[in-house]
Protein backbone atom coordinates (compact mmCIF):
# COMPACT_ATOMS: atom_id res chain seq x y z
CA UNK A 1 0.00 0.00 0.00
CA UNK A 2 1.28 3.42 -0.88
CA UNK A 3 1.52 5.92 1.99
CA UNK A 4 0.78 3.16 4.50
CA UNK A 5 2.56 5.05 7.28
CA UNK A 6 -0.07 7.78 7.03
CA UNK A 7 -3.11 5.68 6.21
CA UNK A 8 -2.94 3.06 8.96
CA UNK A 9 -2.53 5.52 11.85
CA UNK A 10 -5.12 7.77 10.24
CA UNK A 11 -7.63 4.93 10.15
CA UNK A 12 -6.90 4.04 13.76
CA UNK A 13 -7.42 7.67 14.81
CA UNK A 14 -10.68 7.80 12.85
CA UNK A 15 -12.01 4.63 14.50
CA UNK A 16 -11.02 5.97 17.90
CA UNK A 17 -12.92 9.19 17.26
CA UNK A 18 -15.96 7.31 16.01
CA UNK A 19 -16.13 5.05 19.07
CA UNK A 20 -15.10 7.71 21.60
CA UNK A 21 -18.66 8.42 22.87
CA UNK A 22 -19.30 4.69 23.50
CA UNK A 23 -15.96 4.26 25.23
CA UNK A 24 -16.44 7.28 27.48
CA UNK A 25 -20.02 6.33 28.30
CA UNK A 26 -19.24 2.78 29.43
CA UNK A 27 -21.21 1.82 32.52
CA UNK A 28 -23.18 5.05 32.72
CA UNK A 29 -26.84 4.83 33.72
CA UNK A 30 -29.58 7.36 33.21
CA UNK A 31 -30.99 9.11 36.25
CA UNK A 32 -34.71 9.47 35.67
CA UNK A 33 -37.04 10.46 38.50
CA UNK A 34 -40.56 9.53 37.49
CA UNK A 35 -43.65 10.71 39.33
CA UNK A 36 -45.90 7.70 39.45
CA UNK A 37 -49.70 8.11 39.58
CA UNK A 38 -51.07 8.13 43.11
CA UNK A 39 -54.45 6.52 42.62
CA UNK A 40 -53.74 3.75 40.11
CA UNK A 41 -51.70 0.66 40.80
CA UNK A 42 -51.23 -0.80 37.33
CA UNK A 43 -50.92 0.57 33.84
CA UNK A 44 -52.71 -0.96 30.89
CA UNK A 45 -49.82 -3.44 30.53
CA UNK A 46 -46.83 -4.44 32.67
CA UNK A 47 -44.12 -1.87 33.24
CA UNK A 48 -41.50 -3.63 31.12
CA UNK A 49 -43.99 -4.03 28.27
CA UNK A 50 -44.93 -0.36 28.47
CA UNK A 51 -41.31 0.75 28.68
CA UNK A 52 -40.41 -1.24 25.57
CA UNK A 53 -43.52 -0.85 23.49
CA UNK A 54 -45.58 2.17 24.51
CA UNK A 55 -44.76 3.87 21.20
CA UNK A 56 -46.00 0.91 19.18
CA UNK A 57 -49.07 0.58 21.40
CA UNK A 58 -49.96 4.25 20.88
CA UNK A 59 -49.46 3.95 17.11
CA UNK A 60 -51.70 0.88 17.12
CA UNK A 61 -54.34 2.81 19.08
CA UNK A 62 -54.14 5.67 16.59
CA UNK A 63 -54.76 3.32 13.65
CA UNK A 64 -57.57 1.48 15.37
CA UNK A 65 -59.46 4.57 16.57
CA UNK A 66 -59.07 6.88 13.58
CA UNK A 67 -58.96 4.51 10.66
CA UNK A 68 -60.87 1.46 11.86
CA UNK A 69 -63.35 3.07 14.24
CA UNK A 70 -62.56 0.72 17.14
CA UNK A 71 -62.37 2.30 20.58
CA UNK A 72 -61.89 -0.44 23.17
CA UNK A 73 -58.51 -2.03 23.93
CA UNK A 74 -58.25 -5.41 25.62
CA UNK A 75 -54.96 -5.86 27.48
CA UNK A 76 -52.99 -9.07 27.97
CA UNK A 77 -55.02 -9.89 31.09
CA UNK A 78 -58.35 -9.25 29.38
CA UNK A 79 -59.10 -5.91 31.07
CA UNK A 80 -60.67 -3.32 28.80
CA UNK A 81 -59.61 0.28 28.33
CA UNK A 82 -60.79 3.11 26.11
CA UNK A 83 -58.11 3.98 23.56
CA UNK A 84 -57.53 7.66 24.25
CA UNK A 85 -54.20 9.33 24.94
CA UNK A 86 -55.43 12.34 26.93
CA UNK A 87 -58.29 10.70 28.79
CA UNK A 88 -56.91 7.22 29.49
CA UNK A 89 -53.13 7.57 29.64
CA UNK A 90 -53.00 11.13 30.94
CA UNK A 91 -55.96 10.52 33.21
CA UNK A 92 -53.43 8.76 35.47
CA UNK A 93 -50.02 10.05 34.38
CA UNK A 94 -49.01 13.69 34.15
CA UNK A 95 -47.09 14.76 31.09
CA UNK A 96 -44.58 16.96 32.90
CA UNK A 97 -44.08 14.55 35.82
CA UNK A 98 -43.86 11.34 33.86
CA UNK A 99 -43.69 11.44 30.06
CA UNK A 100 -41.32 14.40 29.78
CA UNK A 101 -38.87 13.01 32.36
CA UNK A 102 -37.64 10.18 30.14
CA UNK A 103 -38.19 12.02 26.88
CA UNK A 104 -36.03 14.93 28.01
CA UNK A 105 -33.15 12.67 29.01
CA UNK A 106 -33.34 10.62 25.80
CA UNK A 107 -33.84 13.73 23.62
CA UNK A 108 -37.07 12.37 22.21
CA UNK A 109 -39.61 14.86 20.90
CA UNK A 110 -42.83 13.09 20.01
CA UNK A 111 -45.18 15.24 17.96
CA UNK A 112 -48.28 13.95 19.76
CA UNK A 113 -48.46 17.08 21.91
CA UNK A 114 -48.91 19.36 18.89
CA UNK A 115 -52.53 18.24 18.84
CA UNK A 116 -53.31 16.04 21.82
CA UNK A 117 -53.97 17.74 25.13
CA UNK A 118 -51.77 17.15 28.15
CA UNK A 119 -54.51 16.49 30.67
CA UNK A 120 -58.26 15.84 30.77
CA UNK A 121 -58.48 18.74 33.21
CA UNK A 122 -56.59 21.20 31.04
CA UNK A 123 -58.27 24.60 31.11
CA UNK A 124 -56.94 26.37 28.02
CA UNK A 125 -55.82 25.26 24.58
CA UNK A 126 -52.21 26.16 25.24
CA UNK A 127 -50.92 23.67 27.82
CA UNK A 128 -49.17 25.03 30.90
CA UNK A 129 -45.40 24.81 30.60
CA UNK A 130 -43.48 22.93 33.25
CA UNK A 131 -41.17 24.92 35.47
CA UNK A 132 -37.60 24.67 34.11
Amino acid at each position, binding site marked *: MYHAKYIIPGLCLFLLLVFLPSLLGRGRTFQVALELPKDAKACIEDTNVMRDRHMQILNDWRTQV*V*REGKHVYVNAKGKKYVMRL*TDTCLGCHTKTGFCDRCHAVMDVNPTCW*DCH*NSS*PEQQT*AIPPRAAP
Partner: protein
Amino acid sequence: MNSTRRDFLKLAAIAALGVSAGRLGLLGDGPAQAATLPDVADYASGIKAGHWGMAVFSTQFTPELIAVCRAACHREHNVPDIPGDKDVKWFWGASFAEAFPGEQGKYLSDDVKNRVFPLLCNHCEAPMCVQVCPTQATFQRPDGIVMMDYHRCIGCRYCMAGCPFGARSFNFQDPRPFIKDFNPHYPTRTRGVVEKCDFCAERLAVGKPPVCVEASGGALVFGDLSDANSAVRKALRDHFAIRRNPAAGTSPSVYYIL
Protein backbone atom coordinates in the same frame (compact mmCIF):
# COMPACT_ATOMS: atom_id res chain seq x y z
CA MET B 1 -110.62 39.61 36.59
CA ASN B 2 -109.98 43.21 35.71
CA SER B 3 -106.96 43.11 33.35
CA THR B 4 -106.06 45.91 31.03
CA ARG B 5 -104.93 45.46 27.44
CA ARG B 6 -101.48 46.64 28.49
CA ASP B 7 -101.17 43.91 31.13
CA PHE B 8 -102.22 41.30 28.60
CA LEU B 9 -99.58 42.41 26.12
CA LYS B 10 -96.89 42.33 28.80
CA LEU B 11 -97.88 38.77 29.71
CA ALA B 12 -97.87 37.69 26.06
CA ALA B 13 -94.42 39.18 25.47
CA ILE B 14 -92.94 37.38 28.48
CA ALA B 15 -94.57 34.11 27.42
CA ALA B 16 -93.13 34.46 23.92
CA LEU B 17 -89.70 35.13 25.36
CA GLY B 18 -89.95 32.04 27.55
CA VAL B 19 -91.01 29.81 24.67
CA SER B 20 -88.17 31.00 22.44
CA ALA B 21 -85.54 31.23 25.18
CA GLY B 22 -83.70 28.18 23.88
CA ARG B 23 -83.59 29.46 20.30
CA LEU B 24 -82.43 32.93 21.28
CA GLY B 25 -79.61 31.50 23.36
CA LEU B 26 -80.94 32.93 26.62
CA LEU B 27 -80.54 29.56 28.31
CA GLY B 28 -76.85 29.58 27.48
CA ASP B 29 -75.42 27.19 24.94
CA GLY B 30 -77.00 24.11 26.38
CA PRO B 31 -75.45 21.10 28.13
CA ALA B 32 -73.26 20.33 25.16
CA GLN B 33 -70.46 18.57 27.09
CA ALA B 34 -71.27 16.33 30.00
CA ALA B 35 -67.64 16.72 31.15
CA THR B 36 -67.39 13.06 32.15
CA LEU B 37 -64.90 10.76 30.52
CA PRO B 38 -66.44 8.05 28.32
CA ASP B 39 -66.19 4.60 29.83
CA VAL B 40 -65.66 1.24 28.16
CA ALA B 41 -69.33 0.48 28.73
CA ASP B 42 -70.37 3.60 26.80
CA TYR B 43 -68.79 2.22 23.65
CA ALA B 44 -71.08 -0.79 23.77
CA SER B 45 -73.99 1.53 22.97
CA GLY B 46 -72.38 2.99 19.87
CA ILE B 47 -74.79 3.50 17.00
CA LYS B 48 -74.04 2.05 13.61
CA ALA B 49 -75.56 2.78 10.24
CA GLY B 50 -75.33 1.74 6.64
CA HIS B 51 -74.93 5.31 5.46
CA TRP B 52 -75.21 8.35 7.72
CA GLY B 53 -77.11 11.31 6.33
CA MET B 54 -78.88 14.45 7.40
CA ALA B 55 -82.01 16.37 6.45
CA VAL B 56 -82.03 20.11 7.10
CA PHE B 57 -85.35 21.85 7.72
CA SER B 58 -84.06 25.14 6.37
CA THR B 59 -87.28 27.02 7.18
CA GLN B 60 -86.57 26.53 10.87
CA PHE B 61 -83.13 28.10 10.70
CA THR B 62 -82.49 31.67 11.73
CA PRO B 63 -79.06 33.27 11.97
CA GLU B 64 -79.33 32.87 15.74
CA LEU B 65 -79.99 29.11 15.55
CA ILE B 66 -77.14 28.68 13.10
CA ALA B 67 -74.88 30.53 15.55
CA VAL B 68 -76.01 28.23 18.37
CA CYS B 69 -75.30 25.07 16.36
CA ARG B 70 -71.99 26.48 15.14
CA ALA B 71 -70.91 27.38 18.66
CA ALA B 72 -71.85 23.90 19.92
CA CYS B 73 -69.86 22.22 17.16
CA HIS B 74 -66.85 24.50 17.40
CA ARG B 75 -66.68 24.21 21.16
CA GLU B 76 -66.89 20.40 21.16
CA HIS B 77 -64.11 20.08 18.60
CA ASN B 78 -61.79 22.96 19.58
CA VAL B 79 -62.29 24.73 16.26
CA PRO B 80 -60.34 28.02 16.34
CA ASP B 81 -62.01 31.37 15.81
CA ILE B 82 -59.71 33.28 13.48
CA PRO B 83 -60.82 36.63 12.07
CA GLY B 84 -60.48 37.25 8.36
CA ASP B 85 -60.22 34.87 5.43
CA LYS B 86 -58.00 32.35 7.23
CA ASP B 87 -61.03 31.36 9.25
CA VAL B 88 -61.60 27.70 10.09
CA LYS B 89 -65.18 26.47 10.11
CA TRP B 90 -66.94 23.17 10.43
CA PHE B 91 -70.51 24.56 10.45
CA TRP B 92 -71.56 27.93 9.07
CA GLY B 93 -74.44 29.84 7.54
CA ALA B 94 -74.76 31.20 4.02
CA SER B 95 -77.35 32.73 1.72
CA PHE B 96 -79.28 30.84 -0.96
CA ALA B 97 -76.96 32.15 -3.66
CA GLU B 98 -73.88 30.86 -1.83
CA ALA B 99 -75.44 27.53 -0.82
CA PHE B 100 -77.03 26.71 -4.18
CA PRO B 101 -75.10 28.62 -6.86
CA GLY B 102 -76.29 26.22 -9.57
CA GLU B 103 -79.90 27.21 -8.96
CA GLN B 104 -79.21 30.77 -10.17
CA GLY B 105 -82.35 31.87 -8.40
CA LYS B 106 -83.88 34.77 -10.21
CA TYR B 107 -87.00 36.38 -8.71
CA LEU B 108 -86.75 34.24 -5.60
CA SER B 109 -89.54 34.23 -3.05
CA ASP B 110 -88.90 36.73 -0.29
CA ASP B 111 -88.48 34.18 2.46
CA VAL B 112 -85.94 32.09 0.53
CA LYS B 113 -84.07 35.21 -0.55
CA ASN B 114 -83.65 36.28 3.08
CA ARG B 115 -83.12 32.83 4.55
CA VAL B 116 -79.74 31.71 5.92
CA PHE B 117 -78.84 28.09 5.25
CA PRO B 118 -76.68 25.99 7.59
CA LEU B 119 -73.79 24.45 5.66
CA LEU B 120 -71.39 21.70 6.64
CA CYS B 121 -69.45 18.88 5.05
CA ASN B 122 -71.90 16.85 3.01
CA HIS B 123 -70.19 13.49 3.57
CA CYS B 124 -70.76 12.63 -0.06
CA GLU B 125 -71.43 9.13 -1.27
CA ALA B 126 -68.75 9.55 -3.96
CA PRO B 127 -66.46 12.07 -2.28
CA MET B 128 -64.12 14.05 -4.48
CA CYS B 129 -61.78 14.87 -1.61
CA VAL B 130 -61.19 11.17 -0.91
CA GLN B 131 -60.40 10.51 -4.56
CA VAL B 132 -57.72 13.20 -4.72
CA CYS B 133 -56.07 12.87 -1.31
CA PRO B 134 -52.52 11.62 -1.98
CA THR B 135 -52.08 10.07 1.47
CA GLN B 136 -55.64 8.91 2.15
CA ALA B 137 -55.64 11.21 5.14
CA THR B 138 -59.27 11.72 4.24
CA PHE B 139 -61.08 8.49 3.65
CA GLN B 140 -64.60 7.17 3.52
CA ARG B 141 -65.69 4.87 6.32
CA PRO B 142 -67.99 1.94 5.54
CA ASP B 143 -70.81 3.83 7.26
CA GLY B 144 -70.50 6.72 4.84
CA ILE B 145 -68.71 9.22 7.06
CA VAL B 146 -65.84 10.97 5.26
CA MET B 147 -63.27 10.92 8.01
CA MET B 148 -60.13 12.97 8.61
CA ASP B 149 -56.88 11.40 9.81
CA TYR B 150 -54.88 14.46 10.88
CA HIS B 151 -51.83 12.29 11.52
CA ARG B 152 -51.52 11.53 7.82
CA CYS B 153 -52.46 14.90 6.39
CA ILE B 154 -49.52 16.59 4.68
CA GLY B 155 -51.34 19.86 4.09
CA CYS B 156 -51.27 19.77 0.30
CA ARG B 157 -54.86 21.12 0.21
CA TYR B 158 -55.77 19.02 -2.81
CA CYS B 159 -58.92 18.01 -0.97
CA MET B 160 -59.88 21.67 -0.64
CA ALA B 161 -59.47 22.07 -4.38
CA GLY B 162 -61.56 18.95 -4.97
CA CYS B 163 -64.43 19.75 -2.62
CA PRO B 164 -67.25 21.35 -4.63
CA PHE B 165 -68.78 22.82 -1.47
CA GLY B 166 -65.98 24.74 0.24
CA ALA B 167 -66.51 22.64 3.36
CA ARG B 168 -62.84 22.28 4.27
CA SER B 169 -60.54 24.68 6.07
CA PHE B 170 -56.77 24.85 6.25
CA ASN B 171 -54.81 25.69 9.38
CA PHE B 172 -52.50 28.46 8.18
CA GLN B 173 -51.08 28.85 11.68
CA ASP B 174 -51.16 27.13 15.05
CA PRO B 175 -54.85 27.18 15.97
CA ARG B 176 -54.38 26.90 19.73
CA PRO B 177 -54.13 30.62 20.58
CA PHE B 178 -57.45 31.16 18.79
CA ILE B 179 -59.47 28.52 20.65
CA LYS B 180 -61.73 30.37 23.05
CA ASP B 181 -63.94 27.63 24.53
CA PHE B 182 -61.64 24.70 25.11
CA ASN B 183 -62.67 21.06 25.35
CA PRO B 184 -59.80 18.98 26.81
CA HIS B 185 -61.41 15.70 25.76
CA TYR B 186 -60.94 16.33 22.04
CA PRO B 187 -57.60 17.11 20.41
CA THR B 188 -56.82 20.36 18.67
CA ARG B 189 -55.25 20.36 15.24
CA THR B 190 -51.84 21.67 14.33
CA ARG B 191 -50.58 24.08 11.72
CA GLY B 192 -50.59 22.65 8.21
CA VAL B 193 -53.54 20.26 8.23
CA VAL B 194 -56.96 20.53 6.64
CA GLU B 195 -59.97 20.00 8.85
CA LYS B 196 -63.73 19.63 8.47
CA CYS B 197 -66.87 18.28 10.08
CA ASP B 198 -66.68 14.56 10.89
CA PHE B 199 -70.38 13.99 11.74
CA CYS B 200 -69.25 13.67 15.37
CA ALA B 201 -67.97 10.15 14.75
CA GLU B 202 -66.55 10.03 18.27
CA ARG B 203 -70.02 10.75 19.71
CA LEU B 204 -71.75 8.21 17.47
CA ALA B 205 -69.36 5.63 18.92
CA VAL B 206 -70.90 6.21 22.36
CA GLY B 207 -74.46 6.41 21.10
CA LYS B 208 -74.89 10.19 21.05
CA PRO B 209 -76.07 12.29 18.10
CA PRO B 210 -73.89 15.02 16.59
CA VAL B 211 -73.80 18.19 18.69
CA CYS B 212 -75.29 20.34 15.93
CA VAL B 213 -78.27 17.98 15.72
CA GLU B 214 -78.69 18.14 19.47
CA ALA B 215 -78.46 21.93 19.51
CA SER B 216 -80.82 22.42 16.58
CA GLY B 217 -83.92 21.29 18.46
CA GLY B 218 -85.24 19.16 15.62
CA ALA B 219 -84.31 21.40 12.70
CA LEU B 220 -81.56 18.93 11.76
CA VAL B 221 -82.63 15.32 11.35
CA PHE B 222 -79.77 12.83 11.44
CA GLY B 223 -79.98 9.14 10.67
CA ASP B 224 -79.30 6.16 8.45
CA LEU B 225 -80.14 6.85 4.83
CA SER B 226 -80.00 3.16 3.98
CA ASP B 227 -82.71 2.34 6.56
CA ALA B 228 -86.09 3.09 5.01
CA ASN B 229 -87.68 3.50 8.45
CA SER B 230 -85.18 6.03 9.82
CA ALA B 231 -86.16 9.54 10.86
CA VAL B 232 -84.17 11.11 8.05
CA ARG B 233 -85.80 8.93 5.37
CA LYS B 234 -89.20 9.74 6.78
CA ALA B 235 -88.41 13.45 6.62
CA LEU B 236 -87.31 13.04 3.00
CA ARG B 237 -90.47 11.09 2.11
CA ASP B 238 -92.68 13.79 3.57
CA HIS B 239 -90.85 16.88 2.31
CA PHE B 240 -89.23 17.77 -0.98
CA ALA B 241 -85.49 18.26 -0.55
CA ILE B 242 -82.60 19.26 -2.78
CA ARG B 243 -78.85 18.84 -2.44
CA ARG B 244 -76.04 21.27 -3.08
CA ASN B 245 -74.31 21.22 -6.48
CA PRO B 246 -75.63 17.90 -7.82
CA ALA B 247 -73.81 18.54 -11.12
CA ALA B 248 -70.49 17.89 -9.36
CA GLY B 249 -71.51 14.25 -9.21
CA THR B 250 -70.43 13.61 -5.63
CA SER B 251 -73.91 12.69 -4.37
CA PRO B 252 -74.05 14.54 -1.03
CA SER B 253 -75.67 12.94 2.02
CA VAL B 254 -77.03 16.23 3.38
CA TYR B 255 -80.48 17.13 2.05
CA TYR B 256 -82.01 20.61 2.28
CA ILE B 257 -85.75 20.85 2.75
CA LEU B 258 -86.64 24.27 1.41
